[in-house]
C-alpha cells in the first residue's frame, strides 16, 4: 500500500507543476488560435516570434534591462554586504534588518513609490529609463546582499588579515582575496537579479517609458488585445523561456555534482 502511494504522490505533484506548461508547449507547435481545438502541427508561432520586429525589440530590451540592472544591483549589493560585514555588530544587524524590508515588501508598493519619488517629486522623465533601471536595481540589490552575506560569514576571517600581513593594502586585499572568495555568492546573486528583473511586472508598469515594454508588461497587454498571431507567438516565447530555464538548471546542477565529486577526490 505504502509503496504505491509514495510514487503516486510524487507523480501527482509533478503533474500539477508541469502539466500547464507542457500543454502550452504542445499548443505552441500547432496552428490553433485558441486553447481547446488542435488542428495540425505548425511552426508558424516560432516564425512569428523570431521575425516580428516588435517582438524581437521587446525581448532584447527586456534582456538589456535585466543585465544592466543586475550589474548595478551586484555592485550595490556586494559592496553593501562587505561594508556591513566589516562594520561593528550593531551596524551589521541594523543594515541586515533594513535590507530585509524591500525583500518582503510587496513589489507594487516598491514600484509605486519609486514612480512617485523619481517621476513626480524629482521630475525625472520616464523616457530616460532612469526610473525603470533604478526600480529594478532596487528590486534586486537586497537579494544580492542576501546571497553574498553568507559567503562572507563562511570565509576564513584570517584570509583578509593574511593578505594585509603580506603587504597588500586593504583595497588590494579586498580585490585579490575577499572578492574571489565570495565570487560564488556574487554569481548566484547576479543570476537571481536577472530572473527577478525578467519576472517583474509591477515596477516596470509604474516606471517604464510608455513606448517600451518588458516581456511581462507586453504579455499582459497582448493577452488583453485581439491580435491572435501575436498572442499565439507568445506561447512559443513561453516554450523557449522554459527550455532555456531547464537547460540552465540542468547544466548548473551537473557542474555542482562534478565539482563536489572533484573536491571529494581531492581530499
Amino acid at each position: 500500500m505504502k509503496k504505491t502511494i509514495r510514487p503516486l504522490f510524487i507523480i501527482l505533484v509533478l503533474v500539477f507543476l508541469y502539466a500547464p506548461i507542457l500543454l502550452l508547449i504542445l499548443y505552441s507547435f500547432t496552428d490553433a488560435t485558441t486553447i481547446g481545438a488542435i488542428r495540425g502541427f505548425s511552426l508558424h508561432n516560432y516564425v512569428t516570434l523570431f521575425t516580428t520586429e516588435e517582438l524581437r525589440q521587446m525581448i532584447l530590451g527586456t534582456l538589456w534591462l535585466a543585465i544592466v540592472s543586475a550589474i548595478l544591483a551586484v555592485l550595490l549589493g556586494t559592496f553593501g554586504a562587505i561594508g556591513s560585514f566589516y562594520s561593528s555588530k550593531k551596524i551589521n544587524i541594523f543594515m541586515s534588518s533594513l535590507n530585509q524590508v524591500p525583500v518582503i515588501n510587496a513589489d507594487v508598493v516598491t514600484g509605486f513609490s519609486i514612480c512617485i519619488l523619481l517621476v513626480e517629486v524629482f521630475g525625472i522623465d520616464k523616457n530616460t529609463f532612469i526610473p525603470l533601471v533604478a526600480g529594478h536595481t532596487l528590486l534586486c540589490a537586497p537579494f544580492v546582499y542576501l546571497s553574498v552575506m553568507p559567503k562572507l560569514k563562511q570565509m576564513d576571517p584570517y584570509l583578509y588579515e593574511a593578505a594585509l600581513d603580506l603587504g597588500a593594502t586593504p583595497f588590494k586585499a579586498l580585490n585579490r582575496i575577499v572578492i574571489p572568495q565570495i565570487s560564488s555568492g556574487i554569481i548566484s546573486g547576479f543570476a537571481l537579479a536577472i530572473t527577478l528583473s525578467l519576472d517583474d511586472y509591477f515596477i516596470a508598469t509604474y516606471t517604464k517609458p510608455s513606448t517600451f515594454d518588458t516581456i511581462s508588461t507586453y504579455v499582459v497587454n497582448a493577452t488583453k488585445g485581439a491580435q491572435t498571431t501575436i498572442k499565439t507567438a507568445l506561447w512559443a516565447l513561453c516554450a523557449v523561456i522554459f527550455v532555456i530555464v531547464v537547460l540552465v538548471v540542468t547544466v548548473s546542477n551537473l557542474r555542482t555534482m562534478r565539482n563536489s565529486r572533484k573536491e571529494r577526490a581531492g581530499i
Partner: protein
Amino acid sequence: MKQTTEKIIELNNITKTYASGITAVSDFNLYVQKGEFVTLLGPSGCGKTTTLRMIAGFELPTEGEILLNGKNISTLPPYERPVNTVFQRYALFPHMNIFENIAFGLRQKKMASGIISKKVKHVLDLVDLEGFEGRSVNTLSGGQQQRVAIARALVNEPEILLLDEPLGALDLKMRKEMQLELKEMHERLGITFIYVTHDQEEALTMSDIIVVMNEGKIQQIGRPEDIYNEPKNVFVADFIGDSNLFNGIMTDHLKVRFCGGTFDCVDDIEKGTHITAVVRPEDVIITNPDEGTIWGRVDSVIFKGIHYEITVICGKNEVVIQSVNAPKVGEFVGLQVDPDNIHIMATGDSTNYFMADIRPDFRLEFNGKHLDTSVTAIISGSSRREDGMLVNSLGDAIDPARTKIMIGIHPKDITMTDQIEEGLIDGYISNLVYKGDHYSYVIHTEIGQDFVVDDEYLWNMNDHVGLIMPVEKMTFKLK
C-alpha cells in the same frame, strides 16, 4: 645565536582594552633581541595572541608603544610593517595555487617575475616542498599546508617572523617533527621568531626565551631552564611541567619544613618566612620507610609509557611522583628530595583587600550588604559626638560620604558556600591550584574584584559560590 645584543623590538607599557571593557593585556613590557626565538606562553585567554596581533598590526594598543629598531610603529598598518605572520589555521588563499600563495607578498612589492620564481623555488626547497608550485591548496595535508604558510611568510624576508600556535592543528608526531624543523630553520636563517603557544613542552623545546603570561600580565621571562627550575610564582610552577606545590615555613638557615618533614634546601630565605615549595614529580625519590625525610602510603600507580605516575599520601598532603620503578599500592614508603631540586618561593602577601562604604548610620556596607560592625569599633580612637558627628582621635570630623574603609581578610578565613545568599559576595571559581594539603582558589566576582580563598575541599572550575567572611577575621583601614 645571540651574537648581537641589539634590541629588534620593544613593547613598552602596552595595554589593550577592548570596547567591551575587557583588558586583554595590561602593562606589558618586553624587548626581544635580534635573532632570538621568543615564545609567549600561557593558557588560552592570557593575552598572548593579542600581544602578537599588536606586533603584527592587526590590533592597536590602547596604551604604550611598540618600537621596531627604535622606531615607533604602534599605529602603522600591518601592510607597512616588516614582519610576517604564520597563522594558526594557515590562512592560505584557497583560490590560488601554491606558487601564487607564496608569490603574493612579492607581487605586492612589484618584484620582477623572474626574481619571484627564483625566490619561491628557494623557499619551497627550504621547507622541503620542491615541485609543489602547481598544486592547489586543498590537495595538501595539514603538515604540508603549514610548510606553505611558513614559506609564504619567509619569502618576504621579514625582520621578525610571528607564529600564532602554528602547530596546534597537527597530530602529535607531526608536531614534534615540525618543532625540531622550526628550531633548525630559525638557527639557519637568523630571523627573529616570536612564537605563541599554550603548549609548555613546545615552548621549552624550541625557545631561547620564554615569556609566561596569565590574565594579560607577564608572570616570568627567562630561559627555558630557568623557567622550569626557578619558577617565580605559583602560577608558573603549576603551568610549566607537572609539579607538587606545598605550603611551608623556613625553620632555619637553609632548612625548610613542609609536608610534615624538614628538608635541606639551597634557597637562602629568612627564617620564619611562609613559603611555597615546588618539587617536580621526577625529583622525588622513593626510599625505604626508614631512609625517607617523610613517609606515606602509596595511593595509586598509573603506567604512563615511559614512567609510572605514583601518588603517595603523606598525612594531609598528596605527593605525585614519576619513577621508572613502581612500588605496590598500599605499600609504606619513604620519600626524599635532593636539596637542589626543592625550589622555594616566598609567599607574597596573599591577603584579600577590598573597599567598603560607610552608611549614613555609620555602619559598613559592601556589595549592598551591611557588615555587623560599626565605624567607631574599627577606627581606633574615634567616637560619635552628641550631635551625631563622627570624629577621629584628634577630634576632626570624618565625613562618611567621602570616606572609605579598606578591609583585609586572609584566604584561609574565607569560607565558600553553595548558598549564594549567605555569602557577603558571590562569584565564579576561575582558577585553582593544589597546594599539597589544600586548594587555593581565585573567585571572580561581578564587581570586578577577585578573591583568593583557601579550602581543603575540591570545588570545580566555574562553580558559583558565595563567600562567607566573618567580621572578626577582618582587618580595617581608613582610606
